[in-house]
């Protein structure tokens, strides 16, 4: 009991000692970088719409494909992590963050070999996104199917 009290007190003390960083700068960084990425996507879509016979649906798919490809290449050049250190969620939340979370482990683990390194570790961060996304989509589809 005494130990429990000590630990509780210490953790409270520890939390009070943690340096408080002002949230506003990081919120602002996330805002403008995140907004800019979305804006960039919209401009791509509008440019794609200039192509004859391009449907809105296809333009949207191309838009995310182009964003994913660009983020992947920027990850390779080692630019995306620097951007991420600045913008935080501003670079995680957009689809580019999903691309970064697939490319970065692939790069990191390629030294452990082709199959067990690069291919196997590719999804260590983004795996949950695909698993949860697939299951949630099936649940959503079932709900609509039944009701």
């Amino acid at each position: 009991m005494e130990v429990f009290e000590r630990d509780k007190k210490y953790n409270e003390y520890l939390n009070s000692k943690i340096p408080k960083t002002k949230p506003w700068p990081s919120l602002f960084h996330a805002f403008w970088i995140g907004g800019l990425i979305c804006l960039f996507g919209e401009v791509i879509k509008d440019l794609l719409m200039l192509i004859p016979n391009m449907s809105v649906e296809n333009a949207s798919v191309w838009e995310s494909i182009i964003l994913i490809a660009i983020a992947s290449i920027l990850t390779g050049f080692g630019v995306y992590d620097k951007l991420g250190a600045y913008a935080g969620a501003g670079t995680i939340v957009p689809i580019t963050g999903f691309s970064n979370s697939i490319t970065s482990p692939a790069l990191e683990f390629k030294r452990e070999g082709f199959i067990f390194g690069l291919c196997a570790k590719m999804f260590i961060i983004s795996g949950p996104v695909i698993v949860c996304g697939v299951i949630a989509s099936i649940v959503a589809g079932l709900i609509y199917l039944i009701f």
Partner: protein
Amino acid sequence: MFDFLMYLKVFLIGGTICMLGQILVITTKMTSARILVTFLLLGVILECVGAFEPMKEFAGSGVTVPIMGFGYTLAKGAIIAGEQEGLLGVFVGGLKAAAGGIAVAVTMAFLVSLFFSSKTKK
């Protein structure tokens, strides 16, 4: 063609969604995988209650570029295919709709890792 009011809306809404993500990072110390999953599920839920389409009409890429858009694509694919083809559609539709994104992400990751190696941080 180029609608500047739309661009403003895309920037503001997209930025705000990312800022919400940053609030989550600061307050809950969530890691990037959790953030991605949270926003993805948010997109699925918004689509289920029918709120995503109007949001998309309003802000375009501002809501589809954030990973919520990926959740929306998956959910919409499963729902529409389910209505058209029944149970099989429910299983096939989601991934079919999102296939482009996943395929490109995987292929690009593969290609990029052939040409680059991870670099240390300075």
